[in-house]
């Protein structure tokens, strides 16, 4: 199968959906001729024009309001917030308005939009351009939260997200944009709320999100040389969460390592751990549930400090080893 990058896969999904459905449009800062800060929307303004690929002033709250209001009257907007950190400037509209409108109105309205935003560290952009804030949105009823880890999932999940009748926060990872993978040329969907076992193994379950899926897969290959077979499960959608796939895996392996980039305290790992501990998998656990997450610090600028702020492949290997062999 043809291989394209994660960024190209997202662009392809946008292009296909905009061709198919004239209600779909793109709006955000520098998404037009500039092509978005990470080049994701490059070339789309040439095909669809400035009426459907709309450059905005630096008004994140305005962007969030624009997609919410337009969705409310029948459009299917795809907004872009340049860095996930800047969602802080849009929170009022996302949390108080978009997420709640349907419920507050007694189920008599829909707000079908996608808000794309790149998260994550590793680019030397320091504390205000590197955060992973997905769990803030997971905590808000009415929003869906998607975090693709591969080009294939990025395209399929984005098509599903655009066609979904709810506000969807679509969290991309900056370091994944240039990663290549097989992606069918024709449109296809990956349904929201379905996890995927990315690698099978019987010794330990690693539940990882976004870029941590990739790092966990690399760790799993190296662990295999030591005789440890790790099963890597990617929830793909944090909300709604496919609990069954995760629980089933943990029941098989009896050990679970949760890996995410976001800060540990209040991160999605806590939710995952509680879901697992509260399920039938509890009876199968041979060891405590372990969370490997970003440190509880702002992301530092210095390259070495930044690198060690969030889980890396070696950290995942070490944590998995400890879990399987007991404390070393």
């Amino acid at each position, binding site marked *: 199968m043809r291989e394209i990058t994660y960024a190209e896969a997202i662009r392809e999904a946008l292009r296909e959906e905009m061709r198919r459905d004239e209600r779909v449009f793109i709006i955000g800062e520098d998404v037009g001729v500039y092509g978005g800060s990470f080049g994701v929307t490059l070339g789309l303004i040439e095909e669809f024009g400035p009426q459907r690929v709309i450059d905005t002033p630096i008004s994140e709250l*305005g962007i969030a309001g624009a997609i919410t209001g*337009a969705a409310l*009257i029948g*459009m299917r907007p795809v907004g872009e917030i340049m860095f996930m950190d800047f969602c802080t400037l849009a929170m009022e*509209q996302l949390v108080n308005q978009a997420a709640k409108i349907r419920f507050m109105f007694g189920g008599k309205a829909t707000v079908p939009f996608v808000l794309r935003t790149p998260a994550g560290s590793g680019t030397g952009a320091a504390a205000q351009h590197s955060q992973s804030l997905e769990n803030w949105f997971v905590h808000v009823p009415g929003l869906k939260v998607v975090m693709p880890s591969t080009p294939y999932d990025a395209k399929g999940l984005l098509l599903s997200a655009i066609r979904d009748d709810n506000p969807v926060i679509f969290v991309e990872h900056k370091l994944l944009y240039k990663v290549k993978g097989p992606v069918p040329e024709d449109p296809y969907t990956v349904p929201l709320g379905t996890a995927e076992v990315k690698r099978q193994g019987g010794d330990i379950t690693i539940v990882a999100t976004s870029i941590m899926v990739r790092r966990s897969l690399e760790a799993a290959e190296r662990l295999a040389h030591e005789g440890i077979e790790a099963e890597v499960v990617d929830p793909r959608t944090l909300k709604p969460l496919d609990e069954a796939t995760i629980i089933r895996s943990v029941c098989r392996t009896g050990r679970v390592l949760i890996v995410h980039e976001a800060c540990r305290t209040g991160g999605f790992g806590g939710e995952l751990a509680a879901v697992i501990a509260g399920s039938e998998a509890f009876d199968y656990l041979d060891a405590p549930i372990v969370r490997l997450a970003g440190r509880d610090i702002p992301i530092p600028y210095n390259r070495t400090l930044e690198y060690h702020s969030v889980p890396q492949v070696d950290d995942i290997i070490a944590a998995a080893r400890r879990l399987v062999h007991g404390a070393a």
Partner: protein
Amino acid sequence: MEWSHDKLIDMLRTMWLIRAFEEKAEELYALGKVHGTMHLSIGQEASAVGAVSALRADDFVLSTHRGHGHCIAKGADLNRMMAEFMGKETGYCRGRGGSMHIADTAGGNLGANGVVGGGLPLAVGVGLGLKMQKRSQIVLCFFGDGAANNGAFHEALNMAAIWKLPVVFLCENNQYAISLSVKKAIAIEHIADRAAAYGMPGITADGNDVLAVHEAVSQAASRAREGAGPSLIESVTYRWRGHSKSDANRYRTRDEIEAWKARCPIQRFTARLIADGTLTEEDADKLRQEAYAVVEAAVAFAESSPEPRLETIEEGVYA
């Protein structure tokens, strides 16, 4: 401006409906029949009715926390509105929204809003959607003097202006953001002057004169409908009651409140219609009585309506 007899009568009737609804809301709260908060618009009826009466029936309205008047002016069924206020299943939002979130999307009312300034960015989206869909409707966005100092105001007005969106921004300057006087909150005299900063017309209207508000909004609505872009209208008015149920009015004087009550928008409009022969005192009295009767019937409907069933508590979070 030419005024049809029926239109004038209808405007006065709607103003009375608002007054009657608000007085009843206050009474129901005092009787312990509603448990939530509310923000009454008594004294601001001309602003709501003047503005919405200048729209087409299929235009949209975005309202505020002090939104009962906007909702009634947009043609809400008072039974369903009162049922919502009382948290009943038959309410516009099945009792999930309450006073601060009443919406009638089918009727073009895209909702009251619990967040000051919350409707302003939404207006950009609605205006953008209408423009992209090449529809001839416009959206009227109510907000208050308090919201005019929120960042959302700046972002929304600027975006609506650069894209020439079919939006009318209507600032109901009722003199206070809870307790803070507009004189202490804003360094210029007229909020409408801020329009110049966004490249749109700004008009300050007497918000207690229903025809003045109507005229200002009519002009802005025409402009919006023709594709010439948004306008900012400041409707200068006054809320007679406190901000919400917990307000002890410590920040203003009784004399000030009485002075504004002497400029009652309903009395002013009634006197004018009697003076020009549009209606008699008896007609006016009948309109008033009918309004109170409609509200009584709405209370009866709401009180006899079922509560939402607990089994349905999680409905409507997701589509």
